[in-house]
């Protein structure tokens, strides 16, 4: 009797088929390829800047036990939190409303353009699609003009600055929120539209006959059925807006309202040289929120993509 576990005629290695062994080797190789830079960054970020030699940046800092690996220190992370603290807060103030707004408005627009039928909706939809193809670079100068000269947002915002927790410079973040919402709206609408096209027309008609208004159909039928797509849109928009530097440089320019990507540019760079451990800690810190979003919404994201 044969105890071979592989399929008949297949070559085996320790009871596993060769095909499977190769698959795992490739997978492990790919894992290493993606993880080593992160691991290196993480190790570098906990080395004391004074002992950072750069010889073996991927080894844990074990001096003086192992020479040439640097000394363990949380100094870079402390520095990163100090240096990016303000930027992180500003980024959160920007990203959370901008993501929710673009998702919600995109979903509403898609509902109006897909589930409800009315004359001229295709024309409006084409405008949305055209919006996707406007390059960032083309709007930089108009954006500055718009927020600094056309719309007196700074003056309009003045009364709000008196509220607790609101600062005068927040007007720039408000401008950024509106800009990102507007710029993200077309792609969000497109994603939701694809989802809504698959929903049954008869279900919406049944709701109409049940006496529901258009607003009620959206709130009670469409919105609950959009949750997987919201996960996709939220993750996408969160990452986009969090990582954006171009609009931030254009609208915020400099000062207290600078977001985390702006602060990241200059941290750890000085005349005396680059503080690599500090830069690594700052980079990891700045990337952390997007990573958390993926971890927490990943399963819903997968569901939404598959939907």
């Amino acid at each position, binding site marked *: 009797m044969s105890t071979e576990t592989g399929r008949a005629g297949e070559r085996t290695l320790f009871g596993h088929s060769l095909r499977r062994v190769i698959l795992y080797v490739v997978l492990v190789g790919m894992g290493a390829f993606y993880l080593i830079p992160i691991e290196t960054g993480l190790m570098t970020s906990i080395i004391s800047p004074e002992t950072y030699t750069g010889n073996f940046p991927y080894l844990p800092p074990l001096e003086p036990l192992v020479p040439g690996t640097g000394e363990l220190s949380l100094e870079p992370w402390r520095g990163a939190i100090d240096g990016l603290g303000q930027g992180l807060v500003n980024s959160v103030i920007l990203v959370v409303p901008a993501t929710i707004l673009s998702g919600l408005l995109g979903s509403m627009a898609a509902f109006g353009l897909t589930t409800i039928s009315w004359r001229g909706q295709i024309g409006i939809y084409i405008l949305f699609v055209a919006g996707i193809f406007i390059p960032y670079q083309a709007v930089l100068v108009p954006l500055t003009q718009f927020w600094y000269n056309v719309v007196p947002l700074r003056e309009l915002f003045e009364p709000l600055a008196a509220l607790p927790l609101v600062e005068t410079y927040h007007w720039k973040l408000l401008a950024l929120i509106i800009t990102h919402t507007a710029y993200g709206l077309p792609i969000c609408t497109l994603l939701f539209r694809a989802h809504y096209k698959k929903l049954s027309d008869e279900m919406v008609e*049944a709701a109409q*006959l049940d*006496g529901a208004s258009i607003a009620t159909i959206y709130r009670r039928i469409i919105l609950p059925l959009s949750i997987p797509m919201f996960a996709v849109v939220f993750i996408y928009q969160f990452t986009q807006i969090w990582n954006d530097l171009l609009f931030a440089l254009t609208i915020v320019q400099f000062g207290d309202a600078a977001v985390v990507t702006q602060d990241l540019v200059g941290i750890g760079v000085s005349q005396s040289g680059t503080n690599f451990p500090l830069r690594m800690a700052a980079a990891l810190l700045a990337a952390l929120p997007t990573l958390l979003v993926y971890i927490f919404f990943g399963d819903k994201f997968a569901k939404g993509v598959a939907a």
Partner: protein
Amino acid sequence: MAELTLDGVTKVFTEDDGNEITAVDEVSVDIEDGEFLVLVGPSGCGKSTTLRMIAGLETITTGEIRLAGQRINEKPPAERDIAMVFQSYALYPHMTVRENMSFGLEESTEMSDDEIESTVADTAELMEIKELLDRKPSDLSGGQQQRVALGRAIVRAPEAFLMDEPLSNLDAKLRATMRTELQRIQDDLDVTTVYVTHDQTEAMTMGDRIAILDDGMLQQVGTPLECYHTPNNRFVAGFIGDPSMNFFEMAVDGERLVVDRFEYPLKPAQQEAVAGKSNVVFGIRPEDIRIKEPGGLSDNYQFEVTVDVVEPRGDENTIHLTFDRSIDDPVTFTATVSGLREVSAGDEVVATFPPDSIHLFDTDTGVALHNRMFDSEDATQQVL
């Protein structure tokens, strides 16, 4: 509960290239309070469009729809107080059965939560879905979803029910059960119902009256037996009944009709009906053709024929017959005989076409010139 009137209802769709397509053409029907009307016709005949116009899901191009005497053309679906059961059931997938059934009451009435709760419970009991109330539609079988969809329509106690092929996604056995149950429920609730189907069996068995549509035009409205025995035209005659009526295109030759080897003598009244025509379509239902063993033709209504194919159905056999098997592409027709009778392909038999059972139609227009003997009074009295 109210009477529903369709008055010259027309629907014209305009295509992108400007072409106009008339989907429903001047349809007028009066549906009495509590009546069960079945709209039947082949696919694309405009029956669903008609139903959707009653529901308010399609605009009406011309004509008027009245519910309880009130014009409802301009009313949005939400204000018509009409419930509809869709072919796909169209349940709300994220809601439980209870929530599905409560939705319409919450949106269209001022009922308190307790009243809604008890109304839903009563309807669930009627529909025998009480134990499903807390489940989601995706956990239910097709038949259960069907019951929930019906329950959702019934719970609102609307003025009228509209049903768009509600049974077509069920398997044959369940469909037969639900057919009976639907009739029972409609009878109990006594709500005006318009039921759309392409299945003539459903139409015959369920409707108080049936309305037959073809190509957007109403062909006939009548009780199932009227439509079956006295069709207005060849389309109705062929559409209602399974296996369908036999048709022969025949030349009028004085007192006889002639085609190939088939010659049929006409009675005086029938002769009058075909007067002035050179061709007519002769029709007879398969069950009206009598088959007997060969041996002598006793009158002119009997013919020697050959059995071509036999389709046993258990209760009866459908046999395909031909006057002459030897010629190419012979005229064939069907007859039904008892399932216990032994007939096999190639047998020579004698077929009788009783003169009281024949139909005659105009070749060009299809209009019925003469229908079989049928007295609806007699038919009803026999049942009583």
